[in-house]
C-alpha cells in the first residue's frame, strides 16, 4: 500500500496499541480512519519509553498491564488492513521488542499483515544496514526521524534511506503537548526538503486544529499522538471511538484552511 496524504496537510494518528485494551484500540483506529486520518501509527508498548512524555508513558504502562504483545499489534494491523484497504499503517516501536521477536520474523509477519512502514524510535541510520535489508526484503517502508538538532549531513543520510514519509520532530524534547508549535519545525522541514521529495510529516507537540493549520503551512502532514492518547484515557472505553472521531473531525477545518499552494509537492 502506498502511504498517501489525500488532503493537505495529511493526518497521521498515533495510538498506543492495547491502551486500555485491544478492542478499544481497534474501534478507535477505525473511527480515526473514517474521520479523516491518512496514516495510523500503531504504537508497540514498551517498558522503557525514554523518548516519550508522561501521557504515552502511562499509556504504555496500561497497555503492558493489559498484556499487549507485538503479535497483538500485528494482528490488529491485519484486521485494519482487511477492513480499510486504503489506510496507511505504520508500526511504531522501540527497538528491543522487535529484536526479541526477531527482525526477520517481524518483517515477515508485518508484510503478511499488510503493514506499510516501520518506525523504530531508537534506531539510527548508522546502525540500520541490516535492519534496512530485512525491511526492504518484505516491502516495508523504513521511516526515520529527523530532529531540529540533526545537521544537514545527517538529514541527507536519513533522507537517503527513508521511505513513505519523513517524520520531522517539531522541537527538541519528548512526546507531549505544548501550547504553540516551536519555530524549530519550519526550519527543519525546509532543510530536509533539500534532500528528499518524500512527504514530510511534523510531530511532537502537535495537538489541536491551530497546530495542524500551522504545520499545513510548511509541511505535508501533521502527526497527532499524545493529544489522542490523552483523550482516550479521559473519556474511557465506551466513549473513545466517538470522541476521537469528533476530535479528528475538529482538526478538519484546519485541514481545509491550509493553503494548498504552499504545501503542494
Amino acid at each position: 500500500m502506498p502511504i498517501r496524504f489525500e488532503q493537505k496537510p495529511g493526518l497521521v494518528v498515533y495510538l498506543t496499541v492495547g491502551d486500555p485494551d485491544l478492542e478499544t484500540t481497534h474501534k478507535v483506529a477505525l473511527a480515526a480512519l473514517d474521520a479523516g486520518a491518512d496514516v495510523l501509527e500503531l504504537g508497540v508498548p514498551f517498558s522503557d519509553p525514554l523518548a516519550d512524555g508522561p501521557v504515552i508513558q502511562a499509556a504504555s504502562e496500561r497497555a503492558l498491564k493489559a498484556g499487549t504483545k507485538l503479535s497483538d499489534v500485528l494482528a490488529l494491523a491485519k484486521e485494519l488492513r482487511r477492513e480499510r484497504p486504503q489506510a496507511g499503517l505504520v508500526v511504531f516501536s522501540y527497538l528491543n521488542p522487535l529484536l526479541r521477536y526477531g527482525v526477520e520474523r517481524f518483517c515477515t509477519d508485518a508484510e503478511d499483515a499488510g503493514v506499510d512502514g516501520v518506525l523504530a524510535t531508537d534506531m539510527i541510520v548508522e546502525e540500520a544496514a541490516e535492519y534496512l535489508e530485512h525491511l526492504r526484503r518484505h516491502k516495508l517502508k523504513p521511516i526515520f526521524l529527523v530532529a531540529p538538532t540533526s545537521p544537514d549531513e545527517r538529514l541527507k543520510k536519513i533522507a537517503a534511506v527513508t521511505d513513505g514519509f519523513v517524520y520531522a520532530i517539531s522541537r527538541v524534547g519528548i512526546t507531549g503537548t505544548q501550547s504553540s508549535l516551536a519555530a524549530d519545525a519550519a526550519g527543519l522541514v525546509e532543510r530536509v526538503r533539500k534532500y528528499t521529495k518524500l512527504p514530510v510529516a511534523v510531530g511532537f507537540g502537535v495537538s489541536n486544529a491551530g497546530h495542524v493549520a500551522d504545520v499545513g503551512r510548511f509541511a505535508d502532514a501533521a502527526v497527532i499522538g499524545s493529544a489522542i492518547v490523552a483523550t482516550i484515557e479521559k473519556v474511557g472505553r465506551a466513549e473513545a471511538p466517538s470522541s476521537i472521531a469528533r476530535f479528528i473531525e475538529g482538526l478538519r477545518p484546519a485541514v481545509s484552511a491550509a493553503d494548498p499552494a504552499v504545501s503542494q509537492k
Partner: protein
Amino acid sequence: MVSGMETLSETTPQQVAGRFGAYGGRYVPETLMAALEELEHAYAEAQKNPAFHARLDDLLHNYAGRPTPLYHAARLTEHLGGAKIYLKREDLLHTGAHKINNCIGQGLLAQRMGKQRIIAETGAGQHGVATATVCALLGMECVVYMGEEDMQRQELNVLRMRLLGAEVRGVSSGSKTLKDAINEAMRDWVTNVRTTHYLLGSVLGAHPYPMMVRDFHRVISKEAKRQILEKENRLPSAIIACVGGGSNAIGAFYEFIPEKDVRLIGVEAGGNGTTLGMHAARFRGGSPGVLQGTYSYVLQDDDGQVALTHSVSAGLDYASIGPEHAALHDSGRAEYTLATDEQALEATVTLARTEGILPALESAHAVAECIRLAPTLGQHEILVVNLSGRGDKDMGILARELKLKGAR
C-alpha cells in the same frame, strides 16, 4: 537465539565506533545524535590536549586523593586461610567511591564544550554525590535524577547532594530505581540537549560513553598493576570487582586484560532469588538486547520488555550491563559470578570486623566472592579486590538488615 539478535550483531559494526565485539553501538532518538557526535569529538580533542590531562591529573591527585592505596588485608587473609588478599582502596577517594574519577573527567569535558548545566542519574547516590561535588567545584548547575525507592534507601546521599547545591529529582516510574532514573535523565537531555551535558555514571549508554567512562576509570588498574608489581614483583591470580553497570570493574580490569594469567572476576547482584525480578544477574538470566542506547545483555521477558530487578545494593540494581563486559563475557576473558544479598551483608560484617573497613554494599559483593574464593587457593596466590566504595551511606540498610540496634 532469537534472529533479531543475530541481526544486530551483524549490523555493520565497522560503520559505528564504540563496538565491543557484537555489543555497544548507538541506539538513541535522533535528537541526541548531534550531541553524541559533539561529545565524541570533544573527547577525542581533549585526549590530545596536554592541558586537559594536566588539569585532570592535578584534580585526581590533589582533590580526589589519587593514587589510592593497594592495601594488604593481613587479618582478612589470615581469617580466610588461603590466598593473600589486597584491597584497592577506591573507598578512600573524595566522596567515598571510584565514581569521582569519571565525574572529574566529564566535568572538565563539559566545561570545554561550554555546557553549564549538568544532569546525571544515580542509583546508590555515589555517582550523584560525585557529580554534585564536581559541579560545585566547577561552578555548574546540577540536576540529579534518582528513583524514589533509591532516595529512601540512600537518603544520606540525597541530603549530601542537596547540601552540595544539586537539585535531586525523584523518579516514580517503573521500579523507581536506577533504570528509571536513566530514562528520566535521557528525557531531560533530549529536551535540553543544546545547553546540557549528560554526565552518565557508568559504562552504559550510547557511544562514546562506555569507552569514555572506562578511560576515566582505567587509572584504577594502572595504579593497581604498578602497586602489585612494587609490592610482590608479580601479578595477582585474580582481580575481583562488583558489576552493576560495570564502571569500577572495567576500570579495575582494563590494564590486566592483556595479562592472560590474571583472572578477571566480575560479581553481579544475586539478590534474593533466581527468579526473574529477584536479582540483577544479567549473565544468569539475561539475553542480548537494546536498553538505553546500547546493545548488551538485558534482563527481559519473552516480549522484549525489560524486567524488574532486585538487589540490596542500589548501585547494582540494574537490568543491563556495560557492553564491554558483554564482550569480555562472551570471549571468556572475564568470568562473571554473583553474590546474594545475604552473602554481601555477611561480607560487610566480615570485612568490618577483620579489617576495620566498612565497604559499600556494592563493593561487599566483590568481598563476598573473595571470601568464597580465597580459601580454595594456596597462600602463594594473590587476590586483588577492588573496594569501589565505602559503606557509610548504607548505615540505614545495615542497621535494619543486621538488626544492629540493641545488638552487640
